[in-house]
């Protein structure tokens, strides 16, 4: 695998010749995911060079966390990836528990897992809307974003907040499930499943969508390791790798699911993989609601958070988020403050190195579709 990134700006690009035009695709652009930009050099409709620019959302989280106590970091972490805050909460808590040697009660594990899967489903629904919107289907965008709202309602009931839940705290979770949550959750799952079948008819079986998405942005199989591609992007290239299966965390060992793969590795296959993973999410949520213990402790008491000192050490915890491997590297030095936290977001390589490689030679019309098919969230790149 000697596949290195091509850094050289294409030599024949002479902007003064009038043959090329340079445009900024974003940050103020509806076809870009979040707040980032692509600096594209075009020859006609074809892209000859691309540079990604990130950092529009840089808040310096890693710096801020070094000067806050462990518990003060807890409301901070969920702001890192806006559409998917719970993965941050879980991984930060898991890392702290690993370093401090805290054991999490059984019920908390189930609740965490349920929370993560609901988040995954909500995030995928948002993505599905974005993906069809990028190809010009605003109808499906409206449907899916609305159905995501039903899931946000469940979150509101479960955690008290729509977007930033602050539910999975170090030591367990903040609250048990409210009464009757199971029924309402199953009702929403039914709705979502119905929507998914409608989406299948309107998007996945749509001739125009197929015409545009098939063959767009192929990630070749040797690119996967060379570029650190993870998650559905990797599974669409035929690799059956899923952190939930490979190194199971929480209660995934007890749940019944398969790793979904495809072979085409283009925008269409990535859509298919994510579509099937949404069905998988629904199935996992149903399984969890059935098998979940109904009572028990949901939180282990932690030391007094005001002077909670964690012994020196380092750890790396990771989970499979919607986009791939999401990881927290935490280093402690025995004081009340964390020494170093690093958040490894899958978008880091997907949106920069992979995007710059795939977009060369693509049509300007396909940039939005290609970008969305990689499923990137800028806030986790720049943190």
């Amino acid at each position, binding site marked *: 695998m000697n596949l290195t990134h091509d850094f050289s700006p294409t030599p024949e690009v002479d902007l003064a010749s009038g043959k090329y*035009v340079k*445009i900024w695709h974003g940050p103020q*652009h*509806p*076809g870009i995911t979040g707040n980032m930009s692509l600096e594209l050099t075009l020859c006609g*409709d074809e892209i000859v060079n691309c540079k990604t620019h990130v950092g529009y959302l840089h808040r310096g989280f890693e710096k801020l966390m070094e000067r806050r106590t462990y518990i003060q970091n807890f409301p901070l972490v969920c702001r890192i990836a806006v559409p998917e805050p719970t993965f941050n909460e879980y991984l930060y808590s898991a890392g702290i528990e690993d370093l401090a040697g805290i054991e999490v009660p059984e019920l908390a594990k189930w609740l965490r897992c349920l929370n993560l899967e609901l988040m995954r489903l909500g995030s995928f629904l948002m993505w599905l809307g974005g993906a*069809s*919107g*990028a*190809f*010009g*289907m*605003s*109808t499906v965008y*409206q*449907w899916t974003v*609305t159905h995501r709202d039903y899931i946000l309602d469940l979150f509101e009931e479960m955690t008290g907040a729509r977007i930033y839940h602050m539910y999975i705290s170090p030591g367990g979770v903040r609250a048990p499930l409210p009464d009757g949550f199971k029924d309402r959750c199953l009702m929403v799952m039914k709705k979502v499943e119905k929507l998914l079948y409608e989406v299948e008819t*309107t*998007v996945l079986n*749509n001739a*125009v*969508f197929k*015409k*545009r998405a098939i063959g767009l942005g192929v990630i070749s199989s040797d690119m996967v390791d060379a570029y650190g591609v993870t998650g559905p992007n990797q599974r669409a290239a035929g690799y059956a790798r899923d952190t939930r299966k490979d190194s199971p965390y929480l209660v995934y060992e007890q749940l019944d699911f398969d790793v979904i793969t495809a072979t085409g590795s283009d925008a269409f296959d990535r859509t298919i993989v994510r579509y099937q993973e949404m069905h998988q999410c629904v199935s996992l949520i149903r399984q969890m609601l059935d098998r979940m213990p109904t009572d028990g402790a949901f939180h282990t008491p932690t030391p007094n958070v005001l002077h909670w000192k964690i012994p020196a050490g380092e750890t790396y915890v990771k989970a499979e988020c919607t986009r791939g491997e999401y990881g927290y590297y935490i280093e402690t030095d025995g004081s009340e403050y964390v020494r170093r936290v690093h958040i490894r977001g899958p978008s880091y390589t997907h949106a920069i190195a992979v995007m710059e490689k795939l977009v060369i030679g693509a*049509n*300007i*019309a*396909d*940039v*939005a579709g290609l970008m969305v098919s990689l499923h990137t969230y800028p806030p986790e790149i720049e943190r």
Partner: protein
Amino acid sequence: MDIWISKIGYYFLNVGIVLVYGLLLGAFIAKTMARVQGRIGIPIYQPFIDILKTFTKRQAISHGIMFNLGPAFRLAGGLGTLAFIPVIYGNEMFSNFSAAGDLLLVMYFIFFGQLGMALGSGESGHPYAAMGIGRGLAQMTAYEVPFTLAVVAIFIQYDTSSITEIVAAQQGSIWNWTLFTNPLAVIAAMIAFLGMAAYPPFDVAMAPNEIPIGPPTEFHSHFLSMMQMNRAIFAGAKLILFMNLFFGGATGLIELVFKTWAIYMVAILVGAAFPRFRTEQAVRFFLGVPMLIGIASVLYIQYWAQ
């Protein structure tokens, strides 16, 4: 002389009616689209407010003389198209300047507005505007082919190029409509109409997720309000033209409203359910089956029907 003054007066009356009707239709269509998406959608009077708002903006940056003229050309294209289309058949008030050969003029005016727009947004200097023009004109030349073939078939069928006479020939019974006497031409023309209406899958020119939003990117304030007005008039004129050519025209206002609405719904329902073609895919699409249908309609009318 008097007849010309009254004709001009009637023409402006027509423009007013079609403008109001076009705006209402636009709002109605937006509401239909919203219903498909599960929303309530805009109030029915929203397009009027939007036009007034863009008109009452206080700042307006100009990029040059052609930039100023672009929306004017566009509006002229819309007004010119309407000028030669009889809105309601058999009514002196609504017949406009319809005369022999007006169909050719109308087809020219459909093109004229786009070209004027191209000049204007070319000077705005925005790369997306230039790209949008390229895309729009490419797609337009493509959908003009099946449309022109359908119109040629109609020329042959009715042996005239006057819209009034074409409508006259379709009167009497529903079976006299071109829809039934020459269905191939209608199919070709309706596919071309999808491209003309610029809803998905043929909205490459404006494509909000790709080149937001194409030619009008830099237009604002009263330039934009002129373009909004033109969009309403042009949509109305096109619908009336299609109704006249293929669906037997209208003899009263209610018939007009119903028929144009039904024709527009075709574009809307297709638009609500499809993603967008790329430019070259759209061009290839129009030059494929629709063009063959168009040719078939000409051959059919020339050799079989008579």
